[in-house]
């Protein structure tokens, strides 16, 4: 198990370095930030001076080397637009993003797993058909529309929840619901199909042949096996949720990383974009590392095969 983890950690380093290189070069293909930073009537000499100052005239690999060697010490450069260290801006926003992603994921899993399991067990029943139809709706609804509908219902009409902002639990409810609903739908469908597959397997029949209660046959023997693919997908989705929630953040004025990075892209604030991409990549990789840890618990065969 220790070796398995070390191996995974080592892979993590590769991935992060790879992402930093790719994102660095792509961002530098996107245009000249100096032109945006200076007023429109700046002279060519002024532009050239600023370029020289910011090191943009160096070859790309030299620029990357500067970036990478500072990055390992935790210095991800200074935002061209905000004029403060990029890492500080990200760290200010990150808790909000984690909070939103975590809440959305929690809501999705807590509802979807029982829903999917019951649908699989009662396959073809009214419950199954209606919950899968509901899931289809959940998957089809665009986030922004759902967000606006929630605001209309719970804030404008009923007046139960605040429309936007972050700080209280009440403010977390709608954004996480708007974000979690499609996940919920996806997990419910996934749980159902995985459970259907597992329930037809021989060891489930063995569990029944032993005279175990249906509760144990399904909740222990079948579900434990069905969780393995679910954890994989949940881990990946969580990674996406951290940086990919711009629309929900915009609708609910949620101060997350998503909006920060989109603003940075539009203003060609490339040190900030670069820093955000790197931080998100690290988070993504760490989440996947956690997923691997959960695997070890769920499927003992993995650590066994790794030892071999």
């Amino acid at each position: 198990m220790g070796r398995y983890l070390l191996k995974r950690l080592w892979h993590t380093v590769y991935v992060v370095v790879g992402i930093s290189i790719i994102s660095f070069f792509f961002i530098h293909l996107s245009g000249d930030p100096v032109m945006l930073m200076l007023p429109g009537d700046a002279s060519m000499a002024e532009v050239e001076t600023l370029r020289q100052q910011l090191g943009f005239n160096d070859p790309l690999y030299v620029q990357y080397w500067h970036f990478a060697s500072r990055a390992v010490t935790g210095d991800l450069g200074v935002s061209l637009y905000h004029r403060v260290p990029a890492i500080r801006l990200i760290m200010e926003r990150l808790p909000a993003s984690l909070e939103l992603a975590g809440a959305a994921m929690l809501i999705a899993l807590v509802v979807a797993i029982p829903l999917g399991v019951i649908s699989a067990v009662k396959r073809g029943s009214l419950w199954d058909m209606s919950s899968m139809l509901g899931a289809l709706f959940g998957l089809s609804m665009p986030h922004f529309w759902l967000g606006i509908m929630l605001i209309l219902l719970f804030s404008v009409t009923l007046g139960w929840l605040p429309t936007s902002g972050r700080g209280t639990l009440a403010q977390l409810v709608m954004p996480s619901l708007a974000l979690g609903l499609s996940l919920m739908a996806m997990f419910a469908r996934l749980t159902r199909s995985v459970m259907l597959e597992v329930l037809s397997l021989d060891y489930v029949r063995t569990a029944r042949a032993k005279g175990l209660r249906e509760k144990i046959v399904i909740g222990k023997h079948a579900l434990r096996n069905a969780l393995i693919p679910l954890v994989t997908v949940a881990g990946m989705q969580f990674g996406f949720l951290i940086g990919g929630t711009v629309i929900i953040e915009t609708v609910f004025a949620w101060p997350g990383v998503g909006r920060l990075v989109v603003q940075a892209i539009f203003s060609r604030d490339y040190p900030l974009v670069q820093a955000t991409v790197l931080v998100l990549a690290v988070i993504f990789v760490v989440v996947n590392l956690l997923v691997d840890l959960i695997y070890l618990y769920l499927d003992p065969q993995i650590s066994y095969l790794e030892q071999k």
Partner: protein
Amino acid sequence: MWVVSSRMLSIRNLKTYFRTPKGLARAVDGVSLDIGPGEVVGVVGESGCGKSVMALSILGLLPRPPAYFAGGEILFNDQDLLKFKPDEMRRLRGNQISMIFQEPMSALNPVFTVGNQLQEVFQVHRNLGRAEALQNAIDMLAKVGVPAPERRVREYPYQLSGGMRQRVMIAMALACRPALLLADEPTTALDVSIQAQIIELMTALKEELDTAILLITHDLGVVAEITRRVAVMYTGKIMEEAPTLDLFDAPLHPYTRGLLTSIPRADASFETESLTEIKGVVPSVAALPPGYHFEPRCPEAIDICRAQAPALEEARPGHRVACWRAAHA
């Protein structure tokens, strides 16, 4: 006349059908079979003849739908299992009637230890606590000849060989000293040398625990080795049923003769004797030929076979056969 002393399990005219998109599949179609206490009865037949469905019917393990019971009864100690409520049936399973399956790898849950899966039986039927159940599990593993059972209980199925896994399955099935063990092709997936060990183990435990066994197999060699009585099934019906020695010595049904002559014999010479086969293939139970189902493949068919299926009749004491020619020969 050969009489069953007391019928522990008595299957009477059982009809287990499946509703399939292609139509009704009569997987078990009017089977009657008795098993006395401690008796070992074999059921042989080619794949798809309904022998496994019959065993699963006894334990109520078939998914319903698509399966349903169109008729008959399964009397276990004079109570009709088909009328049992789901929870009554559950209490019986693994306790009074157990089952072992063909493929010991997929029959064990890959993510739980052997001990965990074995102790469950004691927990559910004997209401034992965790520690006590585990101790029982260890004892049971020792009984089925698993070396170092204290260590094995902490291992997972993938860490065991096929033969060891089948021993674990047997331990699980016999944990509560059931009156009846349904063994569905218990040796088919194993190496030949392991097969013999497993058969030996089952025979020994049967003697010790006085468990009756319904052995389902297509392996006539295994049948000859441990059963006292055997039934031959074809397309959901019993073709012939007789004491094992009698059946092997003097088979009455052309199908049984076909099965027996298709076994390779070690003493046969390649020059003079070729292996006989039964012509044609087993028809699907969802698309059976009209009239008598075996007639198209039967080398000895007469006119009446085309029109009507023969009933299972006693041709000799204790020897029943469903064949127009044999029954009245």
